[in-house]
């Protein structure tokens, strides 16, 4: 398991002879990468141009001037700070609680041999693979049934409340995290917790002070992944939140589309601003991101 996180860094000092095949390979890869980046670069280009410029010359033309005006405008008209804040209020608690709860389950099933261990892991893994639409209708109805005091939710139920969105993220994402964490914890030598137990450490200490610190690399990878997934959620908030003002930023894009009518430059700028947090996370924590996805797919 750990092997997938570390990259074998074999220092190659010899320079290879440049063969035509190598050059062809590089040309092909550069072209493929450019084609992959083209849609994003196109959006960046459109976002930097003024409406007057593109409405006269079309989008497929050399820009007269480049400006950040569209970003400022999208930020303001779209009320983006407000929607970023909504997203923050959903993503951070959901992320932390998901990791906490799934690491507990993973610890219990990987350190103790209960008869139901495998059944439980299968339940969590299967739950994570279900298409969201399979559960969304009864969930929507269930949320209307669950009444909450006003201090927990303005709407006095789970529907139309950030808490409801947080809860479904936790319940749903737990499957993937439990699966990955339990696989990882199984690779931690059993003798370690055994020794702690003999020394009189309680189950909770074995989990919190011994196992969790050893899981730091996986937790970091999962946190990176889960951040992007929860941030990118569109469906849960769209269905479970009715008040447009409470939407997280990804689902609020839908409103922005109306606000920006047909000004494609503004839409491009708005889209890029919404993409920005995930792009930053990707560039800064790419290794964690890739490592997390790899851990989820390979086993043992």
């Amino acid at each position: 398991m750990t092997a997938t996180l570390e990259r074998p860094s074999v220092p190659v000092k010899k320079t290879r002879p440049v063969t035509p095949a190598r050059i062809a390979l590089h040309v092909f890869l550069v072209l493929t990468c450019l084609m992959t980046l083209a849609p994003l670069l196109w959006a960046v280009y459109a976002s930097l141009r003024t409406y007057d410029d593109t409405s006269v010359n079309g989008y497929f033309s050399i820009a007269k001037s480049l400006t950040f005006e569209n970003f400022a405008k999208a930020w303001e008209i779209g009320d983006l700070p407000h929607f970023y804040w909504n997203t923050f209020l959903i993503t951070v608690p959901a992320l932390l609680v998901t990791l906490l709860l799934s690491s507990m389950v993973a610890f219990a099933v990987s350190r103790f041999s209960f008869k139901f261990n495998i059944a439980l892991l299968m339940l969590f893994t299967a739950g994570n693979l279900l298409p969201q639409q399979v559960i969304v209708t009864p969930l929507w109805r269930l949320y209307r049934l669950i009444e909450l005091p006003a201090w927990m939710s303005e709407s006095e139920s789970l529907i139309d409340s950030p808490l409801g969105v947080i809860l479904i993220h936790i319940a749903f994402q737990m499957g993937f995290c439990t699966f990955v964490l339990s696989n990882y914890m199984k690779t931690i030598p059993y003798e370690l917790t055994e020794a702690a137990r003999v020394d009189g450490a309680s189950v909770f200490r074995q989990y919190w002070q011994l196992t969790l610190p050893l899981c730091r690399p996986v937790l970091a990878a999962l946190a990176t992944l889960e951040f992007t997934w929860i941030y990118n959620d569109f469906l849960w908030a769209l269905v479970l939140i009715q008040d447009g003002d409470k939407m997280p930023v990804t689902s609020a894009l839908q409103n922005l589309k109306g606000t920006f009518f047909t000004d494609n430059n503004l839409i491009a700028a708005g889209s890029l601003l919404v993409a920005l947090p995930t792009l930053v996370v990707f560039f800064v924590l790419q290794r964690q991101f890739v490592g997390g996805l790899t851990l989820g797919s390979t086993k043992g």
Partner: protein
Amino acid sequence: MTALQEKPKAVAPSGPPPRRRGKRATALAGTDKLVLALMLGIPTFVHLLFVWIPTLGSVALSFSRWNGIGGFEDIEWIGVGNYVEIFTEYPRFWPAVQHNLIWLLFLLVVPTSAGLLLAVLLDRELRFSRIYQSALYMPMVLSLALVGFIWQLIYTPDGGLLNSVLGLDKPVDWIGDSDINLYAVMVAAAWRHTGYIMLLYLAGLKSVDPALKEAASLDGASASQTFFRVTFPVMKPVNIVVAVVTVIEALRAFDIVYVINKGRNGLELLSVLVTDNIIGEASRIGRGSAVAVILLTISLGVIIPYLYQVFSKENRT
């Protein structure tokens, strides 16, 4: 070919030592038992309440007629009526099934082969390999909703990139024309999916024992023979993951068509039909749930074999 048979033997000793079973649970102190029960109980309760109980709810409601607004006493149980109606009368159902199937086939063919090809090309000592990988992974971090927005700038008939590059006299309305919009949207979805497949295959290729490839080439196999007869079959676990991920992705597809035109006019998908009953105008909970159950049935068709493959190894140790 002997190398293939040797592999499991070589792997077995390096695996984790079998855990000693039994007796542990009884040796726990009272508080420890309680702590463990909570550590398992709370997450399981949350997961069951919000994921599996609604799933069963979908199955139950699929046999009912209900508008979802009134109380439970308004539920009218009508047996398989919803299914009969969906299969025989509901005009959007069969197009949606067809679109989902095309979506699935497209994802299974295009991003999978592109991702596999790129992974094979990148799985070697190569300068700039990390840069190439970063560029190819990047679309993966964008939400499908955002992908929809970004690609609309390419497809839009007035000054979109694609029409301008093609330089056609009559601009094509890539998103408005119901004959082609599904394909246009699938290309955008595949754009995002390819990086993920490449990542999975790169990890898979790295885990293939180099001795296998060496043995094959010593036996006189060509590079392509080695790949198709040795490497690819050995990657069976990765192939299964790719298949599962792709099927689930195809069934979940929703955000992108919803931001483009709310899943109408050629972009109907099963997921849209379900969602329309809650946030759309239809509000027929029973019929929506029946579509959800159809989605559930198809997805269990891949989830169960996947679980079997992943956890059967575990039973043996």
